[in-house]
């Protein structure tokens, strides 16, 4: 698997650190327990396109939002996390 970092170009998977589902929204500090439970523990875990966080940890160290199909591993979109 190769990920095309917007800054460094196409790089091998081994240069990246996986950060999981990028669509989770952190609840407000005073949100109820259920909102926090859902945020910390529950996942959509889709079979198909998945928006996920990757850090180019052995490169520019930027966090990226990658859209990748979990069934085929094909990557359709990569963009920096800043501005999303």
């Amino acid at each position, binding site marked *: 698997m190769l990920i095309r970092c917007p800054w460094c170009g196409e790089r091998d998977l081994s240069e990246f650190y996986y950060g999981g589902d990028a669509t989770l929204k952190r609840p407000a500090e005073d949100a109820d327990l259920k909102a926090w439970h859902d945020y910390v523990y529950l*996942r959509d875990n889709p*079979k198909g396109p998945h928006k996920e966080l990757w850090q180019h940890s052995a490169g520019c160290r930027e966090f990226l939002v990658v859209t990748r199909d979990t069934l085929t591993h094909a990557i359709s979109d990569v963009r920096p996390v800043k501005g999303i």
Partner: protein
Amino acid sequence: MSRYSVASLLRHSLRGHRGWARAWRDPEPKKHYDVVIIGGGGHGLASAYYLARLHGIRNVAVVEKGWLGGGNTGRNTTIVRSNYLIEPNAHFYEHSLKLWEGLSQELNYNVMFSQRGVLNLAHSDAQMDAAARRGNAMRLNGIDAELLTAEDVERMVPHLDFSGHARFPIHGGLLQPRGGTARHDAVAWGFARAASALGVDLIQNCEVTGIRRQANRVLGVETERGFIGCGRLGMAVAGNSGHVAAMAGLRLPIESHVLQAFVTEGLKPLIDTVVTYGAGHFYISQSDKGGLVLGGDIDGYNSYAQKGNMPLIEHCLAAGMQVFPCLSRLRILRHWGGVMDMSMDGSPIIGKTPLDNFYINGGWCYGGFKATPGSGWVFAHTIAHDRPHALNAAFTLDRFERGLAIDERGGGPTPNVH
């Protein structure tokens, strides 16, 4: 079902092995069953078997999208053990291990359970302390455990790196003598044959594509072969747990990840036990055909693909060479991947769901093969009585809300580190 025995083997060999009957029936699905189980892996088949055998519920179907045992049951490295530290895990896996010990007799099918021992290596004083602690916890729970010195380990597995140059020298290890391996396919086939003989319908090539609900009850499943109604519905679909639960409108504390495994070319006997490396994640045993069966970490990103990537292969084989330098010239013959249902605390979920008559069996991470008989046993009990058995009472779906996670590793809610 005609029994398998030495006499039947002799009788059939005289007839050139042309007269063997098929091991299980291949029925058309009925309109309605008392219980439908989604997933014809070891867990689903064992659940159906124990429902029929122990709870008198025989109007049961197992609905499988591919072929029986074609999922993780047929893809795993077959290590069976009960060397757990935390209470609920220790009791549950020990119960499962006891079932393994009588399983070939129980099913009249040779599952080739081989109690060759499972040896966890320790590479520092701190790891020796942790091994002693785990071993003592196991013994207090009535589980066999032996703390080995470096000399003991060298006598037992001489091909490990005892050269004195190892980056992580071996200080000793923790041995569970009753652990071992089993023939993965045989477990699925044995449960299938025994369940079918008790009246369970095994329906293959029949993917469940939807779950029909009315208010808080499940009415049945939509499948490739039409609607099948049921009184109670259980799911045992391993890596597909999130996908199938979503059909019932549930979100789970589970992520699907890919785990790879490897088999080398065949060798003369080299390793007569199961060895796990303590300074990296690597485990190895030798199959009866002579191939070394080995594996390590999951790839670490969400995946439903039954294939992984190269970095993990290099990582896993590098760890293997650190403990067994003699592996360096071997060729890998086969390698594959399976989809793991990684839970948020590394422990399984076996129990009720927010729906009245829908039950979940999942979150097995990469340790569910050893659980196969125990998992079916407690899941059958849970479905039959509409409440968990004491052995699975802690493995609830709502334990995360209640602050009762069962985190053997202490890794927190990050599925890719368990």
